[in-house]
C-alpha cells in the first residue's frame, strides 16, 4: 500500500537553509495536507529524520554544519530509514553532481530553479512508493 493511500498523511521533512525556497516548498506541499517539517541546519535535520523516519526528505545539497550528501549517505546507512525517500535539490546541476547524489542513495535529483509542477510530480511519484529513480532533466529511470 502506498504512503498516499495510508490513513495518516505522509510525513515530509524539508532540509533547506534558504528561507524563500523553504517558504515556497512549505506552501506548495502544505496544500496537499501532508505533515511538513522544515530545518535550515543539516545536523538538526538529520537528527529529526533519524527520530521520525519520514516518508520523504527534500534535501538541499549545500547546508550549514552537514552537507546534503552527508545526510543522504547517513540515511542510506541507517537500517531504520530504508523506506525513506530522498529528493535532493541543488542550484548546481552538473551531471557529475547528480551522479554523486544518486550514488550516495538519493532517489531523485532536481536542479534549482525548478518548476513547482515538476517538483510536485517527483514528490508524488516518490510517495507513491515507486522504487524508480527519476531525474527531471535527463529522464533517466
Amino acid at each position: 500500500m502506498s504512503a498516499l493511500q495510508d490513513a495518516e498523511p505522509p510525513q515530509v521533512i524539508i532540509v533547506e537553509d534558504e528561507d524563500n525556497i523553504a517558504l515556497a516548498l512549505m506552501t506548495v506541499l502544505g496544500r496537499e495536507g501532508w505533515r511538513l517539517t522544515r530545518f535550515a541546519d543539516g545536523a538538526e535535520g538529520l537528527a529529526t529524520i533519524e527520530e521520525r523516519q519520514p516518508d520523504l526528505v527534500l534535501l538541499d545539497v549545500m547546508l550549514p554544519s552537514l552537507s546534503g550528501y552527508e545526510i543522504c549517505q547517513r540515511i542510506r546507512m541507517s537500517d531504520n530509514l530504508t523506506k525513506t525517500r530522498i529528493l535532493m535539490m541543488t542550484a548546481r546541476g552538473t551531471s557529475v553532481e547528480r551522479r554523486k547524489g544518486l550514488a550516495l542513495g538519493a532517489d531523485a535529483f532536481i536542479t534549482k530553479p525548478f518548476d513547482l509542477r515538476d517538483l510536485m510530480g517527483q514528490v508524488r511519484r516518490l510517495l507513491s512508493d515507486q522504487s524508480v529513480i527519476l531525474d527531471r532533466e535527463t529522464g533517466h529511470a
Partner: protein
Amino acid sequence: MLERLTQLPLRLRVFLFFAGLSVGGLVALGGGLWVGLTRVESAGVVSGFVTAGLVAGFGLLALSAWIWMLFDENVARAIERLSTALRARAHTDLDRALDPSHGQYLGDLAPAARAVTGTLAETKNALAEAVERETTRLAVENARLQALLADVPAGVILCAPDHQIVFYNGPARGILTKDRAPGLNRSLLDYLHAGPVKAAFARLSRDGATDAATDVLCACAQSGKMLAGRMRLVDLPQTGSGAPGYVLTLRDVTDELSLHAGREALLEEVFDRVRRPAANLQTVLAAGVAKDAKGRAALLSEVEHLAVAITELGARYDSARGQWWPMTSTGATELAEAIVAQAAQAGVHLTAHAADVRARVDVFQLVSLVVHLAERLVGRDQAGDMTLSIEEEPDGVLISLGWQGALVSVSELERWLAEPLDVGLADVTGRSVLAAHGSEAWPERASPDRGLLRIPLVTAWAGPEASQDVRRAVFDFDLMDRAPSGALAQTSLRALTCVVFDTETTGLLPSSGDEICQIAAVRLLGGRPVAGETFETLVDPGRPIPAAATEVHHITDADVRGAPPIETAARRFHDFADGAVLVAHNAPFDLEFLRRHETGIGRRFDHPVLDTVLLSAVVFGQTEVHTLDALCERLGIVIPSEVRHTAMGDTVATATALERLIPMLEAKGIRTFGEAVAAARRHARLLKDVNAPEHAPA
C-alpha cells in the same frame, strides 16, 4: 705461350709489340710486292704496283685495326676501368680490393694500384676508427641533447636570417604540419603568415643586440592555428655571414584563445540576458502592479526569463569548468602506473587495473590526489588490500580506489579533499584538483566490508591522442653558413636541395594504362639525406596490379585498397619536393607516370632533374652497365634483398649512390648543377635529359 708473354717486363712487351708491328708491316709490304710482281708479267707494271699497294695497304689497315682493338681492350679500357675503380676508392668509402682482372696487361700498374688502394684502405680504416671514436662521443652528446629536446613541449625552430629553417623539433613539426611537413632549408614563411614573423625579426634586428627577444603571435598558414611564442636572435659561432639567425619557440594557443573568447562571450551574454529581466523586475515592482493577477503574471514571466537564463548560462559555465587548466591526453595505463609508483613511495601498495582508454588530465595533480586519498585511507584504520581501477564509461573514465575496511563518510572525505596537496603550487587541494577536472569524488560500498572511492573523469574534452610524430629534432647547422643561392646552374652540387625518389608501378607502359602504386622519396641537403624528412605512400592505381608486377615489388591489390589515388598522393609528393631538384634512377620513366596526371594533380612536375643513370655514365663511362644494381655494386652500396624493388629501398640506394657520385663528379671537374646536366647530356644516347629548358646550363 701467351702466359709466358704476360710475365715479361712491360717495356720488353711493348718493344716486342712494336717490333712485331714493324715485322707485320714489312710482311704486308713484302707480301704486296710479291703479289704485285706476279701480276707484272700478265697485267703490266702499273697494275702490278697498284696490286702491290692495295695488298700492302689492306694488310697494314687490318694490322692497325687489330692492334687498335687489342690496345682498346687491354690498354685504353683497362686504364679507364682502373682509373674509375681508383676514383671510386679515392672519393668514397669503398674499401673493397681491386678486381685482379683490371689491367692485367698493364704490367705492374695493376698490382701497384692494388697496393695503393690497399694502403689507402688501411689508412682510411685507421682514420675511420679515430673518427668513429670521436663521432661516437659526439653521437652520445647528440643523443642526450635529442632526449632533452624531445621533452621540450614547445615547438622550437632555428632559422637563418633569410628565414630558411635550419633546425626544428618534433613539436614544431606537429604545430606546422597540415598537408605539408616542414623541412630543412625551406622558408619558415611558407608555414607561418609572414607579417608577424618578419616584423618581429625586423624589430630585433633594428635593436641589434644579440640574445634580444620579443613575443610573437602568428598564425599557421596551412591550418590557421594561432601560435604564440618568443623570437630570440642567435649568433651561432660558425655563422660567417655576420647576420644572426633566430630561434622561434612556439606553442599552439588556438584552444586557449578559443576558450578565452568563449568565456568572454559567456560573460557578456550573462550580463546581457540578466540585465534586462532584472531591470524589468525592478520596474514592475516599482509600478506596484504585483497585487493584481496581470501584474503577478508579468512578475512571474520576468522571473522565469531570469531563471531560464541563469540555469542555461550556469550549465554552460559548468561544462567549461576546468578547461582552462593545462591538461594532456593521457593513457589510463600510464596514469595507473604513475599512481602505483607514487603510492609505493608513500608506503601504500596498490594493485592496479587500467582499461585501454585515454583521458585529458593533469597527470601530476591527479596522481597526487589519488595517492593522497590512498594514504588517508591507510592512515584511517589500516585499510588493506587496496586496489586501483580505471575503467572506460560511456561518457568518460571512472577511477575507483578500493579498500578493505569501513566505508568513509562524505564529511571525512571532504576533510581529506580540503587538505593541501604537495604539488609545489600554493592553494592546491583535492577539491581544487577535482574542480579543475570538472569532477567529484564520493564513497560507495562495494560489499559489506569493502569500500570504493569513485572519481569520474569526462573525456569529452579529450584532445587528440599524443602525437606519434617522430620526436627527434631535425637540423643541419651548416645551413647557417650557406651562401645565398644564385642561379641553379651555378649552384654547387653539394649545395643543392635534392629530393631523390622512386616509384613502383603496375607495369612499364604508362601509355598502355600502367599506373603508379607506390611513391617514396628522401630529401638531401648538402649531399646528405636529412633524417626524418622522408615521404612514402602507397597509391591506389585504379586498376588491378598484374601478378608479374606484384612478383617484382610485392605490392598487391589488397595493399593499395584504401590508399590515396594518384592525384592526392602525387600532390602530396609535389609539396614534399617543392623547390628541390628531383633525382631518380632513370628519371624519364618515373616522371612520365607523374606528368601524365598533371591536370588532375593540379601541379606541374617541372622541377630540375638529375638522373643517376646519366651521372653514372659521366663517372664510369658509357660502356659500363648502369642499372641500379650495377651502380650500387661499383659504389659498394648494399641494398638488402628485402627492400630491393620497394620504392623506399630503391630510393635510399639511389640517394646513397648520388651521395657517393658527387665527390667523383667533383674530381672530374663537374662541380655545379649546370655542369652536371651538360655532362649528362653528352650521354643522351642512353637516356633523354628531362630537364625543362629553363634548367638547362647556360
